[in-house]
């Protein structure tokens, strides 16, 4: 028990993206579902792990109102949950224990236009949000007020915080007709200004860092003649090198120096490739050893303590499932019809 407590303290490193601070006995899961665009049906579900009861519409039940349209990302920081709702252009700050919304932060420009926030990262008491108005916004987790904004590349998507640096993948997705964007912005977290951009390839999507400070990027390509790739930006040299054997990375997450990468080839079901960031070798190109074949994986979340993987499945038409696998790829349980396009799972 003492050892476990020490382990828990040692792991309270808020720099590590994807690391979930959980007590040894996880009590509940919070599951964010994106919903369909234009439908106002993004939902937050809660699974009580002790009773096994799933409330698929937890946020609305507690707050008497829906989350809004297209909840793209969710992160836990301390006692609060931050949810980014893209088309409603809001950030909901939710009290983790009760599900009550403490504040709804509107992400609008001065003339009332939506800024379209996308993804979140946390570090040093701040939350960083990428938005499609080409900015990263900093929100203070104590006052819950936005207190800084920096312009980056075009249509920033994935974001990661490591060693007082913020890495942002500039996808350029809205500019697909003119060749997307192809850079990762590096922001100095202390001065909150953009230091420089790194050329990584067309349409970068997700960016994550390992414990050594190496930064990994999934580059999506242009769905046509420019292929996708999985690349590493070296912590010391800043050199960008592609990783062999990962041909079509979609989204990925790094937990305990292992990258879990959704790999999607057209015509085949998605696979999860596991890449060891320290040895820089692919451990397996099909994580699931004992479980269902999942056609389309919308997202993966990891329980940093147990190594459990939560794989969100969707078919875009019917409410999707969340499959929980143990660290060896064996299916533990499946939650069916959690919400439209389920995505991020937070373990509490």
């Amino acid at each position: 028990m003492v050892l476990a407590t020490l382990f828990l303290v040692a792991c309270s490193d808020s720099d590590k993206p994807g690391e979930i601070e959980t007590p040894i006995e996880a009590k509940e899961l919070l599951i964010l579902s994106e919903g369909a665009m234009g439908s106002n049906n993004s939902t937050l579900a809660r699974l009580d792990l002790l009773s096994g009861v799933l409330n698929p519409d937890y946020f609305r039940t507690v707050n008497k109102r829906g989350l809004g349209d297209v909840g793209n990302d969710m992160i836990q920081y301390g006692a609060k949950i931050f949810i980014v709702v893209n088309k409603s252009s809001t950030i909901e700050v939710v009290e983790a224990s009760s599900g009550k919304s403490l504040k709804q932060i509107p992400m609008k420009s001065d003339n009332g236009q939506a800024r379209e926030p996308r993804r979140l990262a946390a570090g040093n008491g701040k939350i960083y949000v990428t938005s499609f108005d080409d900015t990263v916004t900093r929100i203070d987790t104590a006052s819950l007020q936005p207190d800084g904004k920096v312009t980056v590349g075009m249509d920033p998507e994935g974001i990661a915080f490591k060693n007082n640096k913020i890495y942002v993948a500039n996808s350029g997705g809205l500019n697909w007709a003119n060749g997307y964007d192809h850079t990762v912005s590096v922001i100095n977290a202390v001065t909150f200004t953009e230091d420089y951009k790194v050329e990584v390839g067309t349409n970068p999507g997700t960016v994550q860092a390992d414990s050594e400070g190496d930064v990994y990027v999934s580059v999506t390509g242009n769905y046509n003649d420019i292929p996708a790739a999985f690349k590493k930006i070296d912590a010391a040299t800043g050199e960008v090198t592609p990783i062999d054997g990962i041909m079509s990375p979609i989204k990925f997450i790094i937990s305990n120096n292992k990258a879990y990468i959704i790999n999607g080839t057209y015509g085949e079901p998605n696979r999860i490739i596991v890449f060891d960031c320290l040895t820089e070798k692919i451990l397996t190109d099909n994580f699931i050893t004992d479980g269902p074949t999942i056609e389309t994986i919308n997202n993966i979340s990891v329980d940093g303590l147990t190594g459990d993987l939560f794989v969100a499945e969707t078919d875009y038409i019917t409410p999707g499932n969340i499959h929980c696998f143990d660290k060896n790829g064996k299916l533990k349980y499946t939650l069916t019809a959690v919400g439209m396009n389920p995505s991020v799972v937070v373990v509490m």
Partner: protein
Amino acid sequence: MKSITNKLFLSLFLLCSSVAVLDAQTVADTLLLPELVITERYSDREIRSTAPMQILSRKTISGLHAMQLSDAVKHFSGVTVKDYGGIGGLKTVSVRSLGAHHTAVNYNGVAITDVQSGQIDIGRFSLDQVEHITLHIGQHDQIFQPARAFSSASAINITSPTPSFEEGRKLNGKATIKAGSFGLFNPSLQQNLKLSDKLLAAFSGEFMSANGAYPYLLKYGSAEGDSTSREKRENSDVKNMRLETAFFFQPSRETTGNLRFYYFQSERGLPGATIFYNTKNYSKQRLWDHTFFVQGHMDHHISPKWVLQANAKYNHGYLRYLDPAYLGEGGKMEDIFTQHESYGSVSALFKAFERLSFAASTDLSLATMHANRTAFATPVRLTFQSALAAKWISNRWLATASLLYTQTDERVKNGDAAADRKKFTPYFSTSFKPFDEIDLRWRAFYKHNFRLPTFNDLYYPVVGTRLLLPEEAQQFNTGITYGTSIGQAMPLLTLTADFYHNRVKDKIIAYPTSNLHQWAMMNVGLVEINGLDLSIEGLVHLSDRIQWLFGATHGYQRAVDKSNSSSSSYNHQLPYTPRHSGSVRSTLEMPWFRAAYTLIWSGERYANGYNSEVSRMPGYADHAVSLAKEWQTSMGRLMLAVELLNLCGKNYEIVRNYPMPGRSFRTTISINF
């Protein structure tokens, strides 16, 4: 309204005008029996038709509380209108769940086409100058029509009035002003000129604007106690203008024709869905479009047995879409599309025997589309259509059969073109009257038709797929019609009941590929539809001076997805297709004024192909009432009307997150001079 002295002149026009007014049951396809044409009632034509046919005459339309074609069409049985709310909102019509692409809209005999989207926005047609609107499910019994008229699963025909003049008069017309809630202002003017005994002309112009800023209640959840807020619909304004000129000529007894010029332009805001916490400024998208076409029609009687017909049309369309708040580079997204179509048709009618006649028709159309997108395909499609049809009429039987051949030739400037198509599609229909004295008929029809993928389906950047097959539909219908009169008090009562079974194969829908960002148009759909359409219409003389006209429709539809038996939406009802829906209309004509009541209602439906409690939408009822009065003045016949719409005031939704306006009013003042 039609002068007896001009009966013969007028009957020739009616006989030869491109939308048939011929009595199907008698052999009136000759010049010899014009009287039957004039005195025939629309309701008689409906019950005699071998395929379901519903007619809304000008008189009926005036009591429907309808300003746009979409309002009137909601009163047809079997019709589902997808209405995005407000006057400027998009409105498309699907008949018996086959989809908007399978419903043709014909304007005075010639199809209105949109080669880009394949759907006609029926909100843009005003009812200001409409003689009647007809819905044909399947096909019209009138076999003497262009080949294109055989190609759609259903057709909505809009017929403009032909000018008629009282003895000695050379000029008449109508001036109207409509005004109402949310800034509605709608003046229009119609002028008819008798240029000579052989040449008539009609001019009409209409302007319509509305700010569309209606208040609505936004609900943040569907459970009791969920919060709500009062919002105002933004960016929902609309401004339309229409100009039309038509010439009607009859150079000789055997030849009649008309030539029409039509110009329509529109500017509107696209308010978008009502997104939580982002209703103000959510959408600043604007849409401008203008349409110009010229169409001509001519009938020539070569002999008592042979009639020739020719139709031609040139159409030009322009569409500009702008999103000034787009977050991409350049700060805006702008698309400009233009489309052109040239069309010609020649048809011949051969009245071989008293009971049997044949028709043959050939159409050729050339359509092209341009866009300002880089490397847009710029497709050109040449469509050749040829039809052969036959009609048999006897006292008890009426039967028609037709075979349509369609061939397309498609080319593009960039990339690959879609494949050329060759298809034969047949049609059979019949009706039988078992008893001489009773106006009871049984009818049935079968139709196989298809619709080609539109230019959007094929060539829209990223989403379009060149390999798409045409979407095919099969319709089976069987029904009973009954007409009677009950003494002097009820001179008219008609009832129709039709049961139908439809199948759609290779339905073209947007389908996700393995990439979340990339959807593509695919032929993945298979739909099976079973339904029942009921209608009743009656006229009652409550007293010497008081008449009551009433009508009601009720439709039942079970339209299910049969695309993939392992899919979770297998056997689920198609989205936005209610199981039950209907309409009621009632007009009381009194010497002091006319009072009307209408109801459009719909049962529950699902917003998603996956039917669940979450996607279920509640039913709705839209009640409207009006009062109108007419006076004869020295200047002409003056009419004043006041309408109160959506009495319950609920912002019901036909399409999820697109609320309809609540309670509103409209007044009309018009003078026939």
